[in-house]
């Protein structure tokens, strides 16, 4: 096993790629951590699909307002400049390509950018999709935040997803605890590795052909 960065470090890494003025949706779970690392001196506008642009941080415990929540049903606040709207308008915003970035979790991402993050298809599991499919196809840049490997050591970046798909060829970039990979027309390109992680190791552990885009030249590795 090579270097893994912490979930907070990964959230900070993602935050660093989001320019000022972006409209961003952070999926529930780990992606919400990205908000903690957005620079305080820049304005980045957060969208929550249950009808709010200009979402602010969690309120103090004694200021919780049950009518003001995010997609994860956590209490939030609204910034000056916020706007409320109904669900059809909110999803029109997403589907219409108006969000610059969304950050989603994943069970699997394929080398072509297919995303599986809503169902493991396990027998007896109760399916639930929420807004994942709309986000996956809606945002201009779809960033995935995930561990490279499952707890049992299986790669989550795969040749083809075996779990039910959330969206087809929709992922722009995958941020993992070992490396950042771009989905390109020619396949996955390793953009950045963390610590002693190498492109060769990533290719070996995933079993995929990966492009090396870590230098100035992109060259194919086995």
């Amino acid at each position, binding site marked *: 096993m090579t270097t893994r960065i912490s979930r907070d470090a990964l959230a900070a890494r993602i935050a660093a790629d989001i320019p000022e003025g972006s409209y961003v949706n952070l999926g529930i779970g780990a992606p*919400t951590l990205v908000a903690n690392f957005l620079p305080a001196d820049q304005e980045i506008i957060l969208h929550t699909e249950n009808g709010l642009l200009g979402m602010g941080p969690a309120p103090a415990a004694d200021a919780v307002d049950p009518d003001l929540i995010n997609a994860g*049903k956590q209490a939030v606040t609204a910034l000056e400049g916020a706007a409320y709207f109904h669900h*059809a308008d909110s999803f029109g915003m997403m589907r219409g390509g108006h969000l610059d970035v969304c950050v989603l979790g994943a069970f699997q991402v394929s080398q072509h950018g297919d995303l599986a993050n809503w169902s493991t298809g396990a027998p007896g599991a109760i399916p639930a999709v929420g807004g994942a499919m709309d986000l996956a196809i809606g945002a201009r840049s779809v960033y995935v935040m995930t561990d490279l490997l499952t707890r049992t050591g299986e790669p989550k970046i795969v040749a083809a997803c075996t779990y039910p798909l959330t969206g087809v060829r929709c992922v722009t970039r995958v941020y993992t605890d070992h490396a950042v990979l771009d989905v390109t027309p020619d396949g996955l390109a390793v953009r950045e590795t963390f610590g002693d992680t190498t492109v060769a190791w990533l290719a070996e552990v995933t079993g995929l052909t990966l492009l090396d885009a870590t230098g100035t030249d992109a060259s194919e590795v086995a």
Partner: protein
Amino acid sequence: MIDKTVPDTARAVAGIADGSTVLVGGFGRAGQPVELIDALIAQGARDLTIVSNNAGNGDVGLAALLAKGRVRKMICSFPRQHDSWVFDRLYRAGEVELELVPQGNLAERIRAAGAGIGAFYSPTGVGTQLAEGKETRTIDGRDYVLEHPIRADVALVSALAGDRWGNLVYRETARNFGPVMATAATTTVVQVDRIVPLGSLDPEAVATPGIFVDRVVAVGERRWLDAGAFVGGVDVDGNPLAATAADAPEGAHR
């Protein structure tokens, strides 16, 4: 004089027939018309098809209606939550049917019903299980799936304030599905915290014009909002925010 106000929730839900399709507003418990659902439970209608984003939280509102065995089918985007134990049990026992719809398609299908659209091509869900059996089409190089309207016999909506013409304003993210659901039902029933005199709502800020509303009932402060922990949410690891824990499946996406 037009007066759509009714004096109590029992009269608000009167006449809802067995077998009805009912749109129920809310996202989690924000905007959930709990007082109307309680009245519907007392009213007794059964064999219902419920269209709502979630399938109930804890033991109140929609969860209570499910627990009474009144619901034949749920159409929703996110039934499984850490506190959806009522639905979970019924579903696993085969006692309730489920149609799972991506959240944006759910909202747009309801809007389509209210706006007289026959069907529409959506890019959401293309190539997934949830588009299986549905017509697809490539338009300008992009793939879409054909989605049909969801219309209902009744809509139950929660808003902040309304007047006797049925004009409504909502509060913060409790607005969510209210304005679209109000347009898509034969009979739209709304609970509000308070009824205000005609002319006191800003005509520029009315989110649901009264044309869509049939009955309005004031329920006062929604006490259940304060009646315990903040339900429905999970922390970054998927564990419930409330003390009433159940395990949240890994990777749950709203």
